[in-house]
């Protein structure tokens, strides 16, 4: 059996993955916010729990969390600017 933390992370990832299906009916602003939250939530769970960076030096944790933050901001910024 997986540990409770790992099982909980998997459940949260499942929930976040399915959230976007009904969310597709939202307005542009709300949709962008939802996508950003889902993106960061999934990335955080993968890097902190699955990759076990929770116990790693902060520089490595920061590098792996910065990647989705910066890229997500760029994507959503350019996507919103065209509207």
């Amino acid at each position, binding site marked *: 059996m*997986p540990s409770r933390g790992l099982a909980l992370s998997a459940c949260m990832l499942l929930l976040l993955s399915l959230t976007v299906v009904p969310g597709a009916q939202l307005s542009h602003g709300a949709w962008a916010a939802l996508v950003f939250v889902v993106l960061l939530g999934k990335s955080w769970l993968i890097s902190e729990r699955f990759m076990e960076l929770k116990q790693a030096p902060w520089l490595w944790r920061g590098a792996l969390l910065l990647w*989705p933050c910066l890229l*997500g901001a760029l994507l959503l910024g350019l996507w919103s600017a*065209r509207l």
Partner: protein
Amino acid sequence: MSTSIDSPLIRDKHLPGDLALWWFVLAELSVFALLIGSFAVARFLDPAAFAQAGSQLLLVDGVALTLCLLGAGFAAACALEQWRVGRRYFTVGWLLLAQGLGSGYIVLKLNEYQHLLTLGLDIDSGGFFTQFWLISGFHFMHVLLGLLVLLAVTLHVLRGKPLAVSTLESATIYWHMLDLIWVMLFVVFYLLV
């Protein structure tokens, strides 16, 4: 030596896997960042064409692909947990599940590629599809390599050969890197249309 994840050894500031692998992960993430960034800029410059092309991809396909990859990542993480406490056959079971779900991703992706080719949407079908085929194809090749790595580790464990925890950590970290990149590609190709 069996080491529980809650032991002090693991709780200390500790980078799992090999350090060299982490530099490799950073390099891979940088390459994908450049590819995804160039896609975002191209879409910004020609939003109408990208929106029309992007509507050819189905959200339900993207969600199914996501569940396969993340499910495989979860199974790989479970395999690592079991290996740390010395349960060889549970480790093999979780590794096989990870490969099964990873193979599911491959089948679904090939099905999607075939569907697009049937519609005549190949690598020459405009800016969106040129970059879609290049970026998703590049990620697809990485997934194939990840499956080979998991298979090699599984066979090693099945044969009863000694396997350092850091080796299995490195194999699973590579797979989680693919998860991390896919989460971003899912947003790029399926959500921000």
